[in-house]
């Protein structure tokens, strides 16, 4: 892990990998969208609206994946004192938050035709909403603390505490949901998923994951550049 310590090695690798990653993302998206909009059938009950699943499920998957990604690199930063790990966690947060928001937006758009209201306190949507709060809290820590070293130390703790509480929140919200059973129980993904539907869904999920990795790689490059700028600016001010 130490060999990534100096950013230059990481940057060379990132610059080498990036074009391929962008190409893969583009290919996956065209395949996924083609599958989602054209080849996969309409649902016998919901009709066309089931196609929202192809943007909702991958978005919520990335929303959760990004938070796990953040918690993992925060743990790495805590245990191995690795400077790049903090940057990896910090840059993953805004991307994860956007996808989390997307999951909420598409979820509520999908809910309207099914449940007739824009928002239902369904277990999954509620957990996703709370995950959004955890993201905002984490990002707010980076904004609130100027000194980068201190901000990293506090953000690490917030990410790890969040990742410990998340399963507990999921458990309590699911239990709470069964307690107050909503009127009509309608499985988000529809009763049975057809193979063509599943194929489209998986391709879209892969496309979203590739997109996340691409955006994260670019953000990492920016973060490293910012760090160099900050150090050189400190250097100028003190002149030593």
């Amino acid at each position, binding site marked *: 892990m130490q060999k990534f310590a100096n950013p230059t090695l990481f940057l060379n690798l990132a610059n080498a990998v990036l074009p391929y990653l962008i190409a893969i993302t583009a290919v996956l998206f065209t395949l996924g969208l083609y599958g989602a909009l054209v080849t996969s059938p309409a649902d016998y009950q919901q009709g066309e609206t089931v196609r929202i699943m192809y943007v909702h499920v991958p978005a919520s998957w990335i929303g959760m994946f990004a938070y796990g990604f953040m918690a993992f690199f925060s743990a790495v930063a805590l245990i191995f004192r690795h400077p790049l790990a903090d940057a990896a966690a910090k840059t993953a947060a805004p991307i994860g938050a956007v996808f989390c928001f997307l999951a909420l937006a598409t979820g509520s758009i999908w809910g309207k035709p099914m449940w007739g209201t824009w928002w239902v306190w369904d277990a999954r949507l509620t957990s996703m909403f709370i995950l959004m709060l955890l993201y905002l809290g984490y990002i707010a820590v980076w904004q609130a603390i100027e*000194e980068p*070293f201190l901000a990293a130390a506090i953000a690490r703790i917030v990410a790890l505490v969040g990742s410990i509480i998340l399963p507990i929140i999921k458990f309590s919200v699911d239990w709470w949901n069964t307690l107050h059973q909503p009127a009509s129980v309608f499985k988000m993904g529809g009763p049975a998923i057809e193979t063509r539907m599943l194929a489209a869904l998986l391709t879209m999920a892969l496309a979203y994951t590739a997109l996340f990795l691409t955006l994260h790689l670019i953000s990492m490059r920016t973060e490293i550049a910012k760090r160099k700028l900050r*150090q050189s600016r*400190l250097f100028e001010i*003190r002149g*030593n």
Partner: protein
Amino acid sequence: MWQGLVLEAKSLACERGGRLIFNNLNFVVGGGELVELRGPNGAGKSSLLRLIAKLNEPAAGSLRLSGSAQDLATQAHYIGHHEAIKPALTVKENLDFWANFQAGAANLAPFNLHQLAHDEARLLSEGQRRRLSLSRLVSVMRPIWLLDEPTVGLDQSAVTNLRNVIKAHLVMGGLVIAATHADLGWPNARVIKLAGGG
């Protein structure tokens, strides 16, 4: 009271806010010695005291205390600019807390604060607050004293009190490291200059 105390620093370096304050600093301080840290502002006098008190991690090098079983931090008193005084509590309650917390006994006499014992700390002047903070030295017996500009704000009688207290401590085999420009009245005090500005 304390025998064979030796505090040794080897190629000590300190960094704060990404900037190198000082590096490869070496010194050895034995029991009964008073060391005065001299140097311009920002030279790292306070940072060195905080390193010894284990409040900060050194960027490099090592600090070792031999001649005492316990860990360095539990053998040291650090009197800095923050006086750790609760305005709402009385003078005695403030000192009692630190005495109970670090297994000692409150002793207001050496810095003659006994008349103010039952006044609320809120009413104390700057000098009196300083004397209350210094009273921790004589309430909890610890061999290593780390004083950050102890004489600031003290009147003449308080400075003499401080000199007597330091003298008694050094005679008992303790050691004192003070960042100060004032004369602490100990004839063979050693001086360590921190260049500052690296």
